[in-house]
């Protein structure tokens, strides 16, 4: 069991290193995801965010504009995730305190 776990871990690391052979160097401003257009000619999203967010939202912070507007639906999902966690903690733990108080 233990040996197979180590083997799986080694396989995982091997896959990661294999994948890294195709990566651009860290900090490469000419990497595929930093160019103005994607290889297929469609517009590249981050370039657009940097260039247009001031104009379109009157906002300096590009992360805020992406978070709240360009990809705002993700953030709604994110809030839902944390609300879900709150509800689960309520569901699992809260009631037992009342029982505790009654004792």
């Amino acid at each position, binding site marked *: 069991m233990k040996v197979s776990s180590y083997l799986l871990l080694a396989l995982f690391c091997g896959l990661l290193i294999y994948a890294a052979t195709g990566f651009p160097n860290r900090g490469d401003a000419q990497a595929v*995801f930093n160019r103005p257009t994607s290889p297929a000619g469609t517009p590249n999203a981050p370039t657009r965010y940097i260039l247009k967010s001031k104009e379109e939202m009157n906002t300096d912070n590009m992360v805020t504009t992406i978070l709240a507007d360009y990809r705002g639906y993700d953030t709604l999902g994110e809030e839902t995730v944390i609300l879900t966690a709150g509800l*689960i903690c309520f569901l699992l733990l809260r009631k037992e305190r009342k029982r505790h108080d009654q004792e």
Partner: protein
Amino acid sequence: MIPTNAPALTPLLFLFTGLLIPLAALKLKKLAYWLALAATALASAAALSNIFRVLDGRAIHYHFGGWPPPIGIEYVLDPLSAFVTSVINVIALIVLIHARRTVEADLPEGKRVPYYALVMLMMSGFNGIVMTGDFFNLYVFLEICSLALYGLVAVGDRKSPVAAFRYLVLGMIGGCFYLLGVGFMYMNSGSLNMADLKAILAVLGPRPGIIVALAFMLLGFGIKMALFPLHGWLPDAYTYAPTATSALMAPIGTKIGAYGLIRVLFFVFVLQFITQTVPVATVIAWLSAAAILYGSIQAMAQDELKRMLAFSSIAQVGYIGLGIGLANPWGLVGAVLHILNHGLMKACLFLVAGNFRMKLGHSRISRLDQEARRKMPWTTAAFTLAALSMIGLPPTVGFFSKWYLAWGAVRNKGWVFLAIILLSSLLNAVYFFRVVERFYLRPKQKGEEAGRTAAATSGRSEVTVSMLAPTLILAASLLVVGLLNAVLVQGILLKFLPPGLAALKP
């Protein structure tokens, strides 16, 4: 207004109800259930009407925030997503009608409010996953429904938190692997949108990063759909969860992973990539074949009915995986048809298990006998019908999806798969007749001899209508959908075939 917003309708409706329930419950706690039921009914209606919007085969795109796809997030309503949302919402509606009594029995009043809120959030996660056209958005909604499921499992009986924790650990690894896959995909292509990625990947061709990204994404979905070696969380989670939860997650939960698999394999990558360049489809097919055998054999050894159904679920997920792995039109139609069929069958069977727990106080196979049938004739009849369908006897739905799968296996010259499909029907027959035989042939057991006169005078004690009706509706639908399957396949299922596969059809 509704037609333009059609794709976003169902997830947003569930989300709204999930947010409303905790607030509404401040005034009136009973409101929670009725709000949940009303939202599910509305969403089912919306999902069914969505099918008619896309019957001409054209997808409806919905841009959140008004930003076109590579910039913003889009929802895509195409025949496949319309079909799958209809399936999950209608099944959830039927199960929720049944859930009222069982949740009342399983949970104290204060906990019902967050329970129903979590059910709504989970449904919004499911609908969001099916509708989305963006990989990162899919991750967010995957996490919503997974988190909600951990909570819903953990309120079951004494052992349920342990089952939920194991589910959480595996589910979180699955989610992280999926996210890592998305990251690798982004590193290599610079896009998160599915349609955009399809165009980019066609230009880029196979690269180490993309191959590993595909592997990690499949691993993530494989854990969520409990494909054979990754199924570790499933049996305990299904067994120890409350009745309502297991009836909701068994028909719907694993199917979402299967849907994700179909989306990634056939709608982002081209057919040649997944069958020849990197033969992941073959790997999935063989794993699924192993899942069918493993699940069926394990199911035979179980005594607890819910646990037997859980292992049977692993086998049935194997059928779906096999259909995906065959990577031809017949296999894919069989897989998607089996998403519907298995949803109906498993929901019916888990409702029957819930009825037994409600009236008999247990669902152990070794303690079932003719008495169960005498007390609950309708419930046992529904079980028998569902069992026949699981085995795959002709007029029921189970036969038709297996028929398509078998046909797909023949077309691929996969004789081993064909043999496994046939063999598994035999195994299904063995473990389901083991239960059915007890209802109709096994006389009452000795220990309960004393209670015989009392039971004979009281006669039937079937569950209440709100629990019996959903069970019977599902059982009847097994026959109806079975008879209508040609309409279904011709009218809807053949419309969604991805371009690469549609070309294979003669």
